[in-house]
């Protein structure tokens, strides 16, 4: 592992070429743009598209664009996740499939397949409504991806992080549920200063969350798990005064909360320790996602 700051390397790599004079728009592209706009009727500020006096070339161009759009829509339709319970797992996205020439392919997991701990960058594509068993996570379990997920575009994947102490179930680009077993967490979810072990009991998790000034914590009704037992459920809302840096808080925890965010936290007793399930949901319909996440967590069966 490199001893250098990975974030600095990433910034350097991404910013390379910003001032490079060799990165130029070629003249032939500029010329093509000029030719295109000369043949292209413009949208007016108030009226509809106007086709009636377009040139034949422009009409052909529009027809080609329409054909591409229709074909694209059909392809997108083909790549939507399956919607029924037990359905075949979805195909990888076009981008994923197309990138297979240079990247290791994602593992396409059929229902019931083992979701193994994925060595980066392998991912396990999973389907809405299907049940999976994980043997890669430190606490082997089974879960069912809620059928509601089929209403969300994109593919879903599961993978392990943090030396397999975290199983991340990724709904699309912006929503994730993480199941965490044996992680260090920040001592204070609003004002983190150091790391502590995950509180050993759900009650202690509640105390840990409630102790954070600046975080509003609401206790929800316990959630029964398919495999027996219950999850204590907390909704955590962070004020704008909470930790807001995009860099890791002290101690580099794998998990932390940020100012203005809202998370649902589930605490599940597993022997002498607690498994924490946490949500990340900046975009989606919160109520619907809470329901769907309750279904996912409620489906948990630990081996």
């Amino acid at each position: 592992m490199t001893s250098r700051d990975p974030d600095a390397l990433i910034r350097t790599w991404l910013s390379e070429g910003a001032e490079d004079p060799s990165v130029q728009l070629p003249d032939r592209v500029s010329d093509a743009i000029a030719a295109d706009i000369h043949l292209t009727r413009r949208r007016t500020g108030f009226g509809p598209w106007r086709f009636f006096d377009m040139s034949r070339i422009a009409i052909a161009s529009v027809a080609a664009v329409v054909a591409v759009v229709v074909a694209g829509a059909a392809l997108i339709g083909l790549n939507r996740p399956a919607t029924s319970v037990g359905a075949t797992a979805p195909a990888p996205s076009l981008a994923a499939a197309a990138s297979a020439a240079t990247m290791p392919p994602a593992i396409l997991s059929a229902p019931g397949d083992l979701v193994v701990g994925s060595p980066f960058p392998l991912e396990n594509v999973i389907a809405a409504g299907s049940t999976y068993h994980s043997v890669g996570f430190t606490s082997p379990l089974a879960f069912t991806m809620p059928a509601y997920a089929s209403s969300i575009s994109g593919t879903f994947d599961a993978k392990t992080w943090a030396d397999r102490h975290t199983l991340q179930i990724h709904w699309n680009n912006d929503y994730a549920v993480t199941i965490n077993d044996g992680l260090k967490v920040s001592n204070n979810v609003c004002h983190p200063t150091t790391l502590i072990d995950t509180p050993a009991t759900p009650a202690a998790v509640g105390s840990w969350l409630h102790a954070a000034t600046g975080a509003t914590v609401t206790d929800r009704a316990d959630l029964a798990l398919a495999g027996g037992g219950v999850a204590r459920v907390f909704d955590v809302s962070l004020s704008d005064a909470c930790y807001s840096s995009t860099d890791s808080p002290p101690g580099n925890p794998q998990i932390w909360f940020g100012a203005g965010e809202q998370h649902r936290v589930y605490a599940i007793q597993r022997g002498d320790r607690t498994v924490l399930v946490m949500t990340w949901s900046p975009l989606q319909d919160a109520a619907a996602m809470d329901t769907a996440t309750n279904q996912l967590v409620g489906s948990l069966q630990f081996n």
Partner: protein
Amino acid sequence: MLLALVERAKQGDEEAFAAVVRVVGDRCMFIALRILRDVDRAEDAVQAAFVSAWIELPTLRDLERFEAWLHRILVNACYAEARRGRRWAANVVLLETDTPAARDEYLTVHDRDQLDRGFRRLPPEQRAVLVFHHALGLTLLEVADHLGIPVGTAKSRLFYATAALRAALEADDRTPIPKERLA
């Protein structure tokens, strides 16, 4: 100068629009190339974006926001281009080959290879946030504005994308333990 050109282009002046392309085209090419990592695809995306911008320009009310507006169109063109199946793995042009030597003390060839691999695995939406934030130096608020997404989404995408690139860098010794923010 740009504002005056945009105003004239809005009124239908094709030469003014061509001048706008000359002024901001290189920047757009850099953004598209950074997101798509492929010269041909980047050129296609930029061309499509400028044609769309020409069509939509009469509807732009605040000319001061032209560049942010154009960037949003450009990024959408990049998304569309990225999802097309053709030429995905071919004609890869790495900006690193033109990198000033001074940078080499920080980034090894292996680093670049790992980062490039990690970057190519990212969805285009996450790539765009990385490029606008790190390569263009925009704040997350500005990134959200340029991409037309909520700030929380920009932040989320930045977290996931950065974590994936960290993991890519750290994959060289087969210890895939990313320092990721997971929730």
